[in-house]
């Protein structure tokens, strides 16, 4: 890394590029969450079921995010694994009111975490227990129990309840993700130094 690059990095002129993969079952609210995280002038008004995937870019105070918003429909879920390699973090969205398909979410999460491109990497995983505003929604603690999140030992993870339509709980999750990424960068630089 050149001196100029470092300098601009310190000064916050050049933001670090981070690839994030946004996964979850269909109708869990992935696109809505990403839409809320975008700057308000570029937000879409109507959210339709994603076909294949969308790429969205937005910036936070220190990082520049590139989000791969994958489709959650079962016929497109096989696409997910092709993007594991180049991503730095994962956002996993769960519809906390869909009790029936909690097992399906767990199954997909287990497949994801056991994939060879993910298994040995210490990438942060952020869970959104979405749709917390619905009457029959499970709490984030319940959701993490159902998904057996306590079994994830080798990756930093965090779950927060969210309401993507109003944007509640999203910033909290994103702040955590930012901290994690910043930490891992620091560690990397220490290793390099």
């Amino acid at each position, binding site marked *: 890394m050149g001196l100029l690059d470092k300098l601009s990095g310190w000064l916050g002129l050049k933001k670090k590029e981070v690839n994030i993969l946004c996964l979850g*079952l*269909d*109708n869990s609210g992935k696109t809505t969450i990403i839409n809320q995280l975008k700057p308000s002038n570029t937000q879409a008004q109507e959210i339709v079921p994603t076909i294949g995937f969308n790429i969205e870019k937005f910036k936070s105070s220190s990082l520049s995010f590139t989000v791969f918003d994958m489709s959650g429909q*079962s*016929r497109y*879920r*096989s696409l997910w694994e092709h993007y594991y390699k180049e991503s730095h973090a994962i956002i996993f969205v769960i519809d906390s009111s*869909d*009790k*029936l*398909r*909690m*097992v*399906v979410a767990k*199954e*997909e999460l287990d*497949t994801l975490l056991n994939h060879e491109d993910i298994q040995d990497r210490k990438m942060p995983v952020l869970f959104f227990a979405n749709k917390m505003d619905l009457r*029959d929604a499970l709490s984030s603690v319940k959701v993490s129990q159902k998904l057996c999140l306590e079994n994830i030992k080798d990756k930093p993870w965090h779950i927060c309840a969210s309401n993507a339509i109003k944007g509640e709980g999203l910033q909290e999750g994103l702040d955590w993700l930012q901290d994690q990424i910043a930490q891992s960068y620091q560690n990397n630089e220490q290793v390099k130094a």
Partner: protein
Amino acid sequence: MSSVESSGDGGRWLDAHYDPVAGLYTFSSCVDLADLSGDGESRLVVGDLGTGSSGMKLKVYRGTALMSESVLLDLPAGLVAFFMDLHEPRIPAVAVASGPCIYVYKNLRPYFKFTLPSLEINPLEQDVWQQVREGQIDPLTLKEMLESIRKKDDVPLSIRSLRFLSLDVNDMDEFVQLHRQQPIRRQTVITCIGTLKKSTADEDGVSCLVIGTENSNVFILDPEAFTILSKMSLPAVPTMMDVTGQFDVEFRITVACRDGHIYILRRESDKPKYCVELSSHPAGLVRIGKNVVVGCTDESLQGFTQKGKKLWKIILPAPITTMAAMDLPTRGFQGVLVGLANCEVHLYRDKNLLSTIKAPDTVTSICFGRYGREDGTLIMTTKGGGLMVKILKRTAAFDDRDSAPGPPLAQSVRLNIPKKTKLYVDQTLRERENGLAMHRTFQMDLSRTRLAAARAYVKALESSLTPVSSSLSEPLKMNAVVQGLGPSFKLTLNVQNTAACRPIMNLAISFLYDENLYKVRNPYMRIPLLVPGLIYPIETFVENTNDKGVSDVIKVFVLHEGKSSPLLTAHINMPVSEGSTLN
């Protein structure tokens, strides 16, 4: 909610929900899946039979929760969801067949009630009741007359007359008073119900209702006006049916009947086109593509073509409780789910068993399709009223292995056999030509070997050379242990009386050995009384007097006092004396 152990299905199903006390008592004919609110989420619609006499309900489930329930007036015989009009949003109606009526629900509210046309009434019966109304005859005479009508005429009596005939003499008067003013009617009841697309094959196309009745008719109803579009008659009472095709184009109704036959009705005729005679009564009927799979009460599953030609038959491990089709168009998979009385659900593709699901209770109804937002959902209710939902894994694969017994796969793998040599060919020729002689020679040699073996054995027995005595009065067993390196050895003889209860007395042991080589301390020993079962160790010392490292056999005899022939003999191969060679 608790998860259920589901071994044996190869981990293909996810246990999404199990409620053992859901209180759902129903059969496959009264269960359907439909998007009742038009939001893309399918609901489960169940006609609950309750206790069989009360508590009949129409229940709707969304996800894991009961969304609504409404009381049904009579036992449901069948339930289907169907599109009855072209209105937007496309919301299907639910038709519940019970008794002689079909109750149609739209948006889960009662919408329409269709009643089957009443049947022709026996004119004699009508006359009799007319007389009763006018007070001309008393109940006893009425009973007599009705009974004579019942015996003579072809047209059966009405329900009211039959009821009257079954009454006690005391209750008759009251019954007549209550009913005599109403005209008599004869009604039939619906036994099964199905749907038939009207003119398009679209998934959300308008469908006609197809109903089978107790008086052996099949009706096709118009979905909007509920008029009878077509009437067909069968030789027997239909119990289950499957409908395919479109009413305006071509259709095919496969009906399983109470006489153990399957009839196939087609558009152009009001009589069955084909008939399949089953060996026993049908317990389930499912159509897969163009073939029909029938489960019978003799624990068999049979496949037929649409023309009634039998394709295959397999025997199941238990009686069939229910059957349903498993159709997954997104993966191009079609199979038959068979619920068995041994609490298992088997999945068959043709005659091959693909998967076995173990349920905690006997499954009484099976429904497979899109539930919620998940396409491959299997919904089962159990005998105890439980509700079970399983979801097919996205990665699940069913390999089409042939479960029928036959040669294993390895047998068809070609072996690497070397080419036939000249020697091999010559030998083969020789064997072919002289086969008889070779066999005889072999047999003779075999007999000789056996003879020689038998002779040697008899000789050994006669001379008591064995360490086990064969005499009945003194059954003995002995083994010998030699300890030591030499030149001095310790010889322990373990003698055992193997008789059941009789002790043996007056025995002695003596040795036969080369006196140049060995010296035995006690060459003659008396054996104490041998109690049955116990092992008696008898010890003596043997010294090797030769220093050339030569060893020999010492023979041990167990003798009965006063008799010269030994009871048993043991040959002890003495080890080489190592002690002497060291010197």
